[in-house]
């Protein structure tokens, strides 16, 4: 029997959640419609959910400068793939060592990792040391290395998984078979830890895909721009459009810049919007795993 009270709560909950859903999605719909709005209509009446005239001019501009965007997507994909792969291996290796019971000095090694969660040198010290000691400005390293490659939270998450979910006997029998520790790690531990590594990898992948800060700090060579870096540079000044396209003699005034801006953003987020429903479950699981630490 469902009581009246329960029914009322159920309806109220559905109403509130429907409103929240609409609030979450409507801005994206406006962005997409704005990108298909005719330029003069947008200038005269502003961005609208029901524009008086549609046009594909903004996308025509993007197609004309397709090489810029193709290159940027290439950079985003390379950086995300490289960074995520390296991140998973580094995180797993480090976490594996920390998960070893009885490792002499294990507490010190844990402290070395955990300390980075508590204290951080801040942007100035980090920036100056990366730039003056490691000279990473305008290199691929600048997009992969700073801050994103490995973090203590993920290490501890994976460490706890190793410690709690892989029985000690498995290691023993492998050792008796004469397997080296590295073989055990790659052939036994990694395959047994696919769920947690997928979670950590997904989070790292999203962080790389979304990153614009490393490009903002360390990259001004436009050849290295990722899609997020392009979005950032256009946001900073719409005149970046002309320099990015490399079309000489074109000024912003000649371009349908009001709608191009939105079309570029749509191009930037479309792949994510398309695949997101499929990995939503894992994304939520990853966030939950991080939140209930250990």
């Amino acid at each position, binding site marked *: 029997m469902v009581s009246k009270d329960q029914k009322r709560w159920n309806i109220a909950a559905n109403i509130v959640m429907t409103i929240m859903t609409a609030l979450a999605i409507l801005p994206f719909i406006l962005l997409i419609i704005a990108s298909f709005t005719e330029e003069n209509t947008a200038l005269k009446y502003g961005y609208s959910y029901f524009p008086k005239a549609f046009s594909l001019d903004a996308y025509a501009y993007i197609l004309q400068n397709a090489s810029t965007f193709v290159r940027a997507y290439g950079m985003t994909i390379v950086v995300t793939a490289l960074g995520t792969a390296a991140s998973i291996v580094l995180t797993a290796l480090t976490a594996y060592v920390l998960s070893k019971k009885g490792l002499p000095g294990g507490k010190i090694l844990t402290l070395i990792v955990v300390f980075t969660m508590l204290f951080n040198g801040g942007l100035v010290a980090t920036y100056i040391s990366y730039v003056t000691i490691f000279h990473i400005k305008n290199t691929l390293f600048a997009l992969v290395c700073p801050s994103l490659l490995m973090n203590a939270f993920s290490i501890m998450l994976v460490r706890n998984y190793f410690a709690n979910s892989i029985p000690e006997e498995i290691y023993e029998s492998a050792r008796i078979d004469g397997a080296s520790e*590295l073989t055990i790690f790659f052939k036994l531990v990694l395959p047994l830890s696919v769920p947690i590594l997928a979670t950590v990898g997904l989070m790292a992948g999203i962080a790389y895909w979304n990153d614009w800060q490393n490009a903002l700090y360390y990259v001004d060579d436009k050849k290295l721009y990722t899609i997020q870096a392009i979005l950032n540079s256009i946001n900073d000044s719409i005149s970046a459009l002309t320099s990015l396209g490399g079309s000489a003699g074109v000024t912003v005034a000649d371009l349908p810049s009001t709608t191009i801006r939105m079309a570029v953003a749509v191009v930037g987020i479309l792949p994510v919007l398309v695949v997101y429903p499929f990995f939503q479950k894992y994304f939520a699981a990853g966030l939950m795993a991080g939140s209930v630490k250990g």
Partner: protein
Amino acid sequence: MGTKKQKINWKHWMPFYLMFLPGAAYLLINNYIPLYGLQLAFKSFSYKKGIGGSKWIGFKNFKFLFSTSDAFIMIRNTLLYNILWIFIGMIFGITVAILFNEVKNAVAKKIYQTAILLPYLMSMVVVAYLVYAYLAGDTGLVNNAIVKGIFGKSDGVQWYGDQKYWPFILTFVQQWKQIGFGMLLYLASLLGIDNSYYEAAMLDGATKWQQIKLITLPLLKPTIIMLVILNLGQIFRSDFGLFYQVPMNQGALFGTTQTIDTYVYRALLENNNVGMSAAASFLQSIVGFIFIITANAIVRRLDENSSLF
């Protein structure tokens, strides 16, 4: 056999130390070597001379920093936004989590969760574009459809030109982006509550509201306290992306949008003022460290399993 009680089998452990090396090398480069750069707060930095070679100048950078009104504004903004958002986020997070839990239809649940988490997945740059579509002075939807359309004003509001709107705009945007994550945070412990409490309460004829007040909230209390304290440990840090991207880097808005992180960035890379930037950054590191350590010490006394270390 030796007489030592326990001889460490180095040959057995050696591979593990080697396996730790790549991660250690990264932490060295990304986290530990930068600590050497903290001394820049007390130096007059020149790129030519490098970190070690630059001249010591004592507390001059700090003196300059605090002789401007910037220091007060950015610290005030950082602290106030954080404190406000911790409590707003907590109330919204719990409310939405409880309501989400009341939805019984699995398909509806999936749709709601997918949608509400979508903003959290987006980068702040993308969020800035979304906000711009609504708030742009000439072409924004709010000015055209609401300010001029509904209220019939002849001129739109210059949202990006007046700092007084931004505490509200930033709060809305922050909650909009964060609410899905906030919900999940509380949902995790909500799902951990034993169903038999509710069954017993229903047998006694308790209403839903009574169940929430007398079962759900009291049982969530430890989680709430932990999260609030751990978040308080972070109040000297701010989300650089939110404060830098969403207000479109507009100078007129700095009074309500400048935080320590945006100041440090602007002084370092836009105004080339390494000294004051380093001083602010140093302060953030040290005070932030003290906050985090204190928060953790408190959490550990309350519940050992919830602390970071």
